[in-house]
């Protein structure tokens, strides 16, 4: 009886993603086109922001010439060009031709997490069209370098097919062009949503998007201030795992545990290190090179359990900020009212995060009913809204009635979570897990912004009430004047303006009173109801005035 043969083979990261491309958001041609666009745009925005350059991003999606008349899905050419600092030519092959090679493994807030999104797009393009990626980049030294490459999927290595040095004339930053199988017909609305929402949180960028139908969308820069770039930070003891600790121990030169603790953790100084080692009952002079694996596990356990570590601070984070967020909302949503609430830094499992919430109310573009706009590290999250923690809060936890907001009020709720590690629930990076710390911060921010809206609405309401009241007198008094003139058999109407003025003065006085004492109401509840009813009847009259 022959034993069943089990074969083991190592697979490369490229191969892993090739086999599991659904995980990374490349499940079908429509989603893949959206994901590729998004990943490459995010790389460009990150590059510009890190280089402190106001981003100018050009994006173009074209159907490949011979396929123009074909129905979707078909081959598209996606090109993205930025004005960032560019990439040193010696890093280009690996930056674009190898999964898990990137500038984003240190702890710092950035849009991408693992530096794999861009490469995934290239990989997907290659497996669906078998065409190379073209990368042109200049670091501003007068020369630009052009690479045509493919990926060796099994070896996770770039294959350079063509390399060329060009004069950098007219070239800025980096441009990437790939061919890929896509479905623009289905993807277009998501892609446009993506650009619109990106424009909300990056009002300091110029983004030009030319789509497959030849339409051009221009998202214009309205502010020159950019968020302060995040600082690189050491890992927090609560956020470290066994593997990371093992690598740290190998890489570092320190010889004693005390030195190691003191130098390698966020907000851990000598004093804290000493106290911690006492707590963990570890000898501070232990040679780090001598630690056995089980000792490393014990150490990680202790690091996680010890409560006295200082919380991570926000220095490694780059929130959008009130001014920029307001500018973005104003530019893209054009609401009647904006409230922004920014929470102080908080942390979950040793990862710092900041929650920012913007509330937009009214205006021409918001539909009736609440619209949720979710962002994480400035990336719009467009899929799986129903599973997101913000959705849960907005849908179930907020007492809208308390804020005087009806179910059909045109209101936009923008939530932004920035963190060194955003707690996505899946690799697809589309919705956030309900971490209690995150939920707490989001709730507080949303409520705070809604409170601002409530104040605005109640002020607006009482002004509107006075206006509507005056409209009612303005309608009825002339009618009364006309009728009594006729009844009396007279010609000239009585001077009803006297009465109108009296009423206007009354209302004005009451409004002044109100400003002095917030608890004095302009009208009684009953009056309000009457005014509303009468105003509604006015609406009816208008409809009937079709003659």
């Amino acid at each position, binding site marked *: 009886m022959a034993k069943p043969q089990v074969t083991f083979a190592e697979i490369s990261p490229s191969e892993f993603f090739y086999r599991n491309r659904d995980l990374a958001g490349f499940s079908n041609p429509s989603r893949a086109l959206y994901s590729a666009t998004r990943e490459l745009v995010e790389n460009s925005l990150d590059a510009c922001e890190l280089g402190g350059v106001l981003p100018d991003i050009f994006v173009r999606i074209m159907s490949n010439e011979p396929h123009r008349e074909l129905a979707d899905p078909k081959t598209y050419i996606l090109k993205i060009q930025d004005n960032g600092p560019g990439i040193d030519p010696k890093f280009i092959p690996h930056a674009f031709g190898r999964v898990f090679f990137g500038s984003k493994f240190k702890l710092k807030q950035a849009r991408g997490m693992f530096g794999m999104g861009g490469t995934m797009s290239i990989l997907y393009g290659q497996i669906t069209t078998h065409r190379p990626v073209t990368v042109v980049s200049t670091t501003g030294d007068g020369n630009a370098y052009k690479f045509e490459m493919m990926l060796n999927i099994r070896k996770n290595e770039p294959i350079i097919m063509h390399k060329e040095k060009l004069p950098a004339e007219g070239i800025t930053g980096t441009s990437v062009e790939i061919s890929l199988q896509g479905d623009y017909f289905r993807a277009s609305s998501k892609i446009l949503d993506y650009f619109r929402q990106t424009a909300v949180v990056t009002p300091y960028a110029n983004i030009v998007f030319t789509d497959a139908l030849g339409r051009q969308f221009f998202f214009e820069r309205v502010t020159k201030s950019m968020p302060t770039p995040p600082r690189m930070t050491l890992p927090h003891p609560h956020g470290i795992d066994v593997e990371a600790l093992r690598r740290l121990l190998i890489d570092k030169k320190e010889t004693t545990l005390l030195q190691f603790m003191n130098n390698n953790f966020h907000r851990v100084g000598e004093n804290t290190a000493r106290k911690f080692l006492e707590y963990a009952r570890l000898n501070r002079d232990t040679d780090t090179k001598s630690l056995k694996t089980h000792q490393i596990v014990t150490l990680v356990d202790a690091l996680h359990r010890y409560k006295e570590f200082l919380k991570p601070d926000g220095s490694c984070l780059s929130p959008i900020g009130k001014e920029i967020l307001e500018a973005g909302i104003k530019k893209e949503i054009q609401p009647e009212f904006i409230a922004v609430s920014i929470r102080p830094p908080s942390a979950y499992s040793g990862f710092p995060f900041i929650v920012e919430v913007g509330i937009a109310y009214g205006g021409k573009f918001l539909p009736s009913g609440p619209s949720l706009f979710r962002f994480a590290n400035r990336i719009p999250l467009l899929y799986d809204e129903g599973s997101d923690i913000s959705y849960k809060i907005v849908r179930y936890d907020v007492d809208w009635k308390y804020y005087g907001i009806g179910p059909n009020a045109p209101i936009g709720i923008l939530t932004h979570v920035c963190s060194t590690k955003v707690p996505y629930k899946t690799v697809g990076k589309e919705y956030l897990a309900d971490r209690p710390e995150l939920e707490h911060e989001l709730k507080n921010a949303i409520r705070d912004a809604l409170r601002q809206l409530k104040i605005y609405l109640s002020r607006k309401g009482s002004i509107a009430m006075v206006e509507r009241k005056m409209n009612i007198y303005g309608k*009825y008094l002339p009618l*009364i004047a006309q009728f*009594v003139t006729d*009844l009396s058999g007279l010609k000239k109407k*009585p001077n009803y303006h006297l009465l109108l003025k009296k009423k206007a003065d009354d209302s004005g006085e009451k409004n002044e009173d109100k400003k002095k004492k917030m608890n004095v109401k302009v*009208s009684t509840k009953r009056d309000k109801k009457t005014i509303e009813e009468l105003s509604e009847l006015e609406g009816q009259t208008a409809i009937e005035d079709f003659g």
Partner: protein
Amino acid sequence: MNLRGKRLSKTSASNRKEETIKLLKELGLSMYEKMESGVFPDVVFPSRSVRNLIYDEELKQYILGANRVTRSSQNIKGIRPFTQIVWLAFFVDKLLRQGKTSTLRDVFYSSQAYNVLFKDQPESDDIIVDLEAVFSRPRESFSIYPEERSAIFGDLTIEYTVPGYEGKKTNLTSHPDGYLIGPSLSTAELVETSAEMIIAVEKGGLFTRFVEEKVHEKYKAIIIDTAGQPPRSTRFMLKRLNREMNLPVYILTDGDVYGEHIAMVIVSGSANAAHLHELTVPTAKWLGIYGSDIVKYKLPSIPLTEHDYKRLHELKRDPRYHKGRWRKELDVFLKIKRKCELEAFAKYGLTAIVDKYLPEKLEKAKSL
């Protein structure tokens, strides 16, 4: 009574109209002056709430008490109904001046031409009653009439005042189906009559029988079909015939609580119209059918229904039913637990009611 033995009307319909127009103008002028001097005009009239409903022993009808309602243009709650009343006054003033009439429904729709919107007809009906209360005059005097359904027949000469017919005279025996008591009849001058009484019957069928059997000749009567609970225009006509022509009014109804209450409303008015005092004929006599008649004449009858009992107990609480014939007959109905219709007399032949019952009852009525 004049030389020919005919009765003539003592007051004139057109006088009443002039009076109403004058009152409306006065109202308009007082409001005009207020507005001109920077005062918010208002209108005050008796409250029609149940709490303000009082039974007046002397008038023998419900009247409104001392509570007043103010509709003011000053407060937001009052300005709309106030405008509506003023509009209505303006509207009926025009109606009266042009000699036109309208219905409750007309009023509702007419308002829309003036940008004074009523939500629905009940709202405009309500304002009409308000205006009635302001002037203590029925809507008919403002040229607003309900759907006509009751009729009149008998030797009565009238003279129309409606446009196109002014001065034209008609005798109400000229058409055997009777004349609708509508706007033109209600505003007509009552010229003369040879009749000596009015007989109001509850039903059209009996009305026709009476005409066929020449009750108007045999008994020198004007016959009126109230068509159930008489509309105001009919009660107003009864009142005028009684007051202006000095004719006694007799009422014949079905032998049930509803019939008894029809008679009561003619005699002493309804709670709904407590703000009006021109609609009652306190001297009118209810001839029957009484509950006791059912027994006496062995009339075919049917058991009282649940509704009948409910109404019966309601009426027993009404002070007007606390004594005399009214009370006695309610008690009889309650005792025999049966009721009957006027047609029940057909058991004794179609003309029995005219030949036997009516003369007996009229004889008795003289002694009531």
